[in-house]
């Protein structure tokens, strides 16, 4: 009874998540970040002769560089509070997770602080990305060598 009462009161007090508004914010900010990335893509294709296949790498690096500046001046965190997944899902959000952890643990020294904590937030992305890539590639290799599918 007590627990039920508590749950009921808690439900009334907590503000409702504005689902539609949040999704729209994420859509526009995320879309905007990708559009900026696309402009960088064109920049590298036109001025540095990258092809459409190879241009992904310098674009990602540039986005993370921009993310470093924004994170350092505390602007990316503000953007994240507004946009939610809109700023977390693009690769600049991955950069932000690494860079903000590095800045935050600077006071604990460079080896144990920065080195040890840099991937505290972003490490899970690397772990699951690598593991699932391993499994997917392995499954595909098995399917190809048994003749079920082609490469």
């Amino acid at each position, binding site marked *: 009874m007590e627990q039920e009462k508590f749950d009921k009161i808690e439900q009334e007090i907590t503000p409702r998540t504005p*689902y539609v508004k*949040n*999704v729209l914010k*994420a*859509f526009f900010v*995320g*879309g*905007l970040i*990708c*559009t900026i*990335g*696309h*402009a*960088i*893509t*064109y920049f590298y294709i036109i001025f540095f002769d990258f092809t*459409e296949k190879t241009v992904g*790498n*310098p*674009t990602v*690096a540039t986005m*993370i560089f921009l993310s*470093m500046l924004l*994170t*350092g*001046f505390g602007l990316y965190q503000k953007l994240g*509070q507004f946009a939610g*997944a*809109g700023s*977390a*899902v*693009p*690769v*600049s959000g*991955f*950069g932000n997770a*690494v*860079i903000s*952890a*590095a*800045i*935050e643990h*600077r*006071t604990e020294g460079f080896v144990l602080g*920065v080195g040890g904590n*840099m991937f505290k937030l972003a490490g*899970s*992305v690397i772990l*699951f*990305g*690598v593991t*699932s*890539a*391993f499994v*997917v*590639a*392995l499954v*595909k*290799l098995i399917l190809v060598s048994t003749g079920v599918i082609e*490469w």
Partner: protein
Amino acid sequence: MIFMDFLFAFIIGGLICAIGQVLMDVGKMTPGKTLSIMVVAGSIISGLGWYQPLIDLAGAGATIPITSFGHSLTQGAIAEAQKHGWVGVLTGMFEVTSSGISSAIVFGFIAALLFKSKGKVN
């Protein structure tokens, strides 16, 4: 049509971020869990061969979201597996993706040198 190109980047990129927001709000997931799921999803979609068409359509709209991280890891592993078989699955993984991780590490270190912590924002 250069305008259409940017429009597709905006729409596809925005949609992927909107899916992430739905996972966070409706699925009540932490950002870390959401990103992990999206990376795994990207890797599976890539294994099925559907991610490259998305990049051809949307350009940076598909390469900037974190799903492309799973895609390039998988493509690296598959490309090496084609050449060297079993061993290639392990050795090829970072061949394509390296730029995201290496630049995050380098810029993270530079940022630690340049900037001071302003305290936690959240």
